[in-house]
């Protein structure tokens, strides 16, 4: 299979249309499984009670907010390096979904923080850097919307996206580098998970559901962008 065949908007357009519904279907199935395990299988937390179940959407949304930004910046960098039209379109297609998951992470974290920390918001490093991520997404979207020529808009957005990547390790390591109210990582590649296995299963299922959802909506959006730019 020649993957470069799909590097042009004209050839990618039908492929995206064919696979997007499957990703949407997978997202719905995984979300149903994740919610079932999260609400009916995972036990009540000994310290936090039922409110801990917010983490089944908060943690996956926070992961996706950072992951989507990295993928968006990756596409943006590809577009700058090789001047490929599809790259800028993919970056534009990912930004709204990334912003949405960043907002969801902040909103759900705030609603979890009130009963457990006693406050909706603190200006600690993790929360503040996640808020900066939301502003980066919104800045990227606003910058692209402000420039009429799509190719120039792609290049300007790409520069902002690449510079903003520096915020991702800051978000990730903020709980290590600074003394934050936000707790450390719940799941670590080196140390494993610090939670009960059914809780972890629900969280991972929801993370996969959000991932599949992001792919599905980004593919539909990139098809819209391709059509709007008259490339299909």
């Amino acid at each position, binding site marked *: 299979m020649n993957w470069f065949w799909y590097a042009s908007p004209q050839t990618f357009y039908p492929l995206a249309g064919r696979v997007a519904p499957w990703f949407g279907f997978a997202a719905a199935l995984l979300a149903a499984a994740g919610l079932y395990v999260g609400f009916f299988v995972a036990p009540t937390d000994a310290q936090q*009670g*039922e*409110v801990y*179940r*917010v983490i089944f*959407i*908060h943690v996956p*949304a926070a992961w996706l907010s950072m992951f989507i930004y990295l993928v968006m910046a990756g596409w943006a960098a590809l577009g700058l390096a090789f001047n490929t039209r599809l790259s800028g379109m993919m970056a534009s297609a990912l930004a*709204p*979904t990334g912003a*949405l998951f960043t*907002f*969801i992470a902040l*909103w*759900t974290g705030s*609603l*979890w923080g*009130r*009963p457990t920390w006693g406050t909706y918001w603190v200006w600690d490093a993790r929360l503040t850097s996640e808020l900066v991520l939301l502003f980066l997404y919104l800045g990227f979207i606003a910058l692209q919307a402000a420039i009429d020529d799509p190719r120039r808009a792609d290049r300007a957005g790409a520069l902002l996206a690449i510079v903003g990547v520096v915020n991702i390790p800051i978000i990730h390591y903020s709980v290590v580098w600074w003394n934050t109210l936000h707790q450390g990582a719940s799941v670590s590649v080196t140390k494993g998970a610090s939670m009960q296995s059914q809780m972890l299963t629900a969280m991972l299922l929801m993370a996969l559901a959000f991932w599949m*959802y992001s792919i599905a*909506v980004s593919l*539909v*959006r990139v*098809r*819209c962008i391709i*059509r*709007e730019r008259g490339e299909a």
Partner: protein
Amino acid sequence: MSDYAFYLWGAYSVTFVCLVLEIVFLLKRKREAKA
């Protein structure tokens, strides 16, 4: 559950509304792009 219902369902309901709104706006954009 009742003590924390506002926080728990406030988180889930807003997440659900956000995702539904994104899909609705996306389908509207798709229709306009095809027109």
